[in-house]
């Protein structure tokens, strides 16, 4: 039970992916097939983002103190700005365990945009199919194609 709760993201990822695959194969309506494709894509993105999650980690953005250390007086601040390298040793330690892994996030940003691109193209083709055959049901389209020949 403990392992089931700990890997709950992955169980839901598999369930969502199979729901999407089932819809793409078994649903006869073209729009329903595309809804299934959208669910399938987001399930794969869920898997990738789940890989990068760490226990007790925060968002992968550094706080300002970690990049620009606080200075007490205006004089030292001015001095610090001129030769920042000399004061690099004063920066606080940044531990990678405190931040989630941003590499899967960056990969999945592309995947989201590509997913919307494929969805838009497929919906445009579905509109052309409806314009030509007057229906979105796969069985009726196949019937019309077979009777036409």
């Amino acid at each position: 039970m403990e392992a089931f709760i700990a890997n709950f993201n992955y169980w839901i990822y598999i369930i969502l992916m199979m729901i999407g695959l089932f819809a793409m194969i078994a649903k006869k309506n073209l729009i329903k097939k595309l809804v299934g494709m959208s669910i399938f894509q987001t399930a794969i993105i869920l898997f990738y983002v789940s890989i990068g999650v760490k226990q007790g980690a925060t968002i992968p953005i550094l706080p300002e103190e970690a990049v620009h250390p606080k200075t007490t007086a205006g004089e030292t601040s001015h001095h610090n700005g001129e030769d920042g390298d000399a004061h690099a040793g004063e920066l606080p330690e940044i531990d990678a365990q405190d931040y989630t892994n941003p590499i899967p996030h960056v990969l999945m940003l592309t995947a989201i945009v590509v997913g919307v691109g494929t969805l838009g193209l497929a919906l445009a083709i579905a509109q052309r199919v409806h314009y030509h055959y007057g229906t979105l049901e796969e069985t009726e389209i196949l019937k019309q194609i077979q009777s036409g020949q």
Partner: protein
Amino acid sequence: MIPSFDIVILIFLVVTAVIALTLKDLLASAMVLGIYSFLMCLLWAEMSAVDVAFTEATVGAGVSTVIMIATVYQTTRKSRD
């Protein structure tokens, strides 16, 4: 990562996915898919992937819902399955 919040959102995700696929009305199906995308966005903000959450909220939930509703209005609202 807050485990209980995570689990609640994941269960709602499966429920909305099944509802979006079983509805006979394609407009309602598109709206439920928008709810699914916003839940996914919430899950990613909670899993500290904020950049993915932004992109999903604008592109995934916004644009794909709009183009799907536009297609439903251009074609038909009824679905047989």
